[in-house]
């Protein structure tokens, strides 16, 4: 039974987030005063039409981009005000990313792809001294994702579902608290999509991993604890699902 006290509280809070893209004279306002609060251990699904700004929100949450206005507070820390170096470090240590197109590096084997975050973190010398520990870690994650046998294969030799599982293993290697998934099943067939969703649910439950998943698939979104819809640059509760499905361990979900 995991320690519950550490799981209670807000992990991510977003206040009045604005983001616009400018191209020449035209400005496209994507996020317009968006607010969001995500609790620790929550599995949140965000749905919306394509182009509604779901991915933009995810990139802002993951410190890949900076907002025009508003605040993103991660574990009590203003992410949007961090320096470039600190944001690089935050991405490397605190967040895990899963993308629609898997985004594995084609030159590296599955195992090396999973190890990529720690190889980025360490210099050659540091890596040499820690390689055994991280290799063990990566192998156990691959085992967990059912890819142990595929560890020396290259991404192009894997099926879509396998690639996505490898990407999830990579996202989990550094033990992040928050997993940001951008249409993780968007490119997969139904079976593979179900497998991925099962994996995400298991991870959410077992490791109390907080997951924010962006999708346009309502069926998958319904499996999350809570579902929000992106419209007009803001998030709104989905009608008919106003009562969020909160994990029993967390008790009542504050509205």
């Amino acid at each position, binding site marked *: 039974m995991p320690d519950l006290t550490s799981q209670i509280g807000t992990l991510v809070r977003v206040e009045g987030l604005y983001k616009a893209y400018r191209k020449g004279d035209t400005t496209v306002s994507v996020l317009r005063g968006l607010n969001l609060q995500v609790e620790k251990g929550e599995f949140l699904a965000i749905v919306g039409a394509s182009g509604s700004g779901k991915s933009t929100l995810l990139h802002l949450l993951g410190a890949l*981009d900076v907002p025009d206005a508003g605040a993103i507070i991660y574990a009590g820390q203003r992410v949007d005000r961090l320096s470039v170096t600190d944001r690089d470090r935050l991405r490397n240590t605190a967040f895990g990313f899963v993308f629609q197109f898997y985004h*594995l590096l084609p030159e590296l084997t599955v195992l090396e792809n999973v190890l990529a975050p720690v190889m980025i973190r360490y210099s*050659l010398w540091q890596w040499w001294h820690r390689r055994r520990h991280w290799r063990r870690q990566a192998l156990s994650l691959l085992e967990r994702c059912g890819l142990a046998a595929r560890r020396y294969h290259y991404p192009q030799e894997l099926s879509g579902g396998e690639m996505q599982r490898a990407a999830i293993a990579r996202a989990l290697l550094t033990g992040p608290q928050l997993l940001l998934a951008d249409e993780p099943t968007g490119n997969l067939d139904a079976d593979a999509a179900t497998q991925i969703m099962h994996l995400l649910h298991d991870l959410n439950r077992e490791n109390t991993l907080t997951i924010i998943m962006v999708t346009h698939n309502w069926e998958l979104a319904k499996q999350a604890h809570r579902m929000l819809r992106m419209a007009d640059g803001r998030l709104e509760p989905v009608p008919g699902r106003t009562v969020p499905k909160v994990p029993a361990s967390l008790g009542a979900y504050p509205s």
Partner: protein
Amino acid sequence: MYKWLLCWRYLRTRYLALACIVSVMLGVATLIVVNSVMEGFATKLRQRLRGIQADILVEARSHDGFPGVEEKIARVQQLLGDRIVAVTPVIETFAMLQFRYQHVGEVITRPVRLIGIDTSSHAQTSDFARHLLNPYFQSNPEECFRLLGAARERYERLRDWIADDTESQSYQAPSGLPPPEPPAATEASSPFTAVLGYGIATYRNPQARATDQHKDVFLLVPGDSVQLTMVTRSDLPGHDGTQGYPRPVTASFVISDLFRCEMSEYDASLVFVDIRDVQRLRAMPNRATSLHIRLRDYDGDARQAVELLRQHFHPALYAVQTWEDKQGPLLAAISIERGILNILLFLIIAVAGFGILAIFFMIVVEKTRDIGILKALGASSRGVMGIFLSYGLALGLVGAGLGTVLGVAITVYINELEQWLARWTGQEVFPRDVYYFDRIPTDLQMHSVLLVNLGALAIAVGASVFPALRAAALQPVRALRYE
């Protein structure tokens, strides 16, 4: 750490990058080969130039030379002590050479440089002996003015044959002067003798093919006689008390051997005779026009020795210089030539650099998504830049390494290659008679190979700076959207 791994993987999987490697390789190989051959030519030329020249020359500014040869030599020996190997007096003058070419019946006249040498010491100051054709003289240069073997036979046969229509006197004294003493050669019956430059005694057969062994036709061979006309010292007053002026002296010389140093300029103009003969003919007893000095350690002592000699030989009367000073313009021309060639050839590597630039830009565009992934996983801009810089360095290293191997191999086997090319194309690539070298000379120099390698690496890394900066500046979000 990922930089090195990715760099290594890119190197193994990007075949486009092979083009960069090949261009760097070819540039480096070319530079190494050209530098080695140029250095080889320069070294060979220096050896040749030096071969017949002593280390230091003390030359009288007057054509009449200086008196008191013995004292001057003693002074030099005293000044330089055991730093010298040998000192020898030389008389250098211009002369007209005249001979009758039997086959045509024409009298041929040509200007030559007459060098009067002291047989006992001259060979110690230069490689003179090595360039004599007669192998006996090569090891016994002090006897090079003796008529031996075939030369003596030919001389005696010709002398008896034309005895009736040639003047009994072998030389004519200039008007108003007492007749000079007879020749200095050891045997009393011997005439004046001379060693002729190979280019004077022969001409190149225009019909000869490149592969022919004997391409030269002999006009003169040892044993033949030539007339040499020179001028006397200019300060001899006439018997009637008139002011001194140079008078022509003509004497007949028998060729004792030929001289071939393979510098066509020297071979076609030098005639060596015994200094005592020139002293007599030019009426300059105990005089010489220059002293040739060979040092034990040229590189270490030359400058100092020249300075010392300049203090004791009045600069108005004597020019003291090293052989390099004397051949300065020629040696300078070689080094300038090499410098320019190097600049031009480095442009080849610069072209390779632009190739790297273009190919790297393409790779950066191709890898935009991967760069986005790396940044999403926490890679810094500097780290991404590092990937491409080290990739450029790796390409440069591999290219320069292969180029060095190729260049050194070509340099070592250049003559075999040249022969193979000549056989294959039917064209002579290296016309041997132009330089008289039978092999293409090469001199592989460590520091120039190193310099070429460093230059190639600098260009390879330099060319990857721009693409690397561009990769580093990519916004991760934009890169990830890139499909």
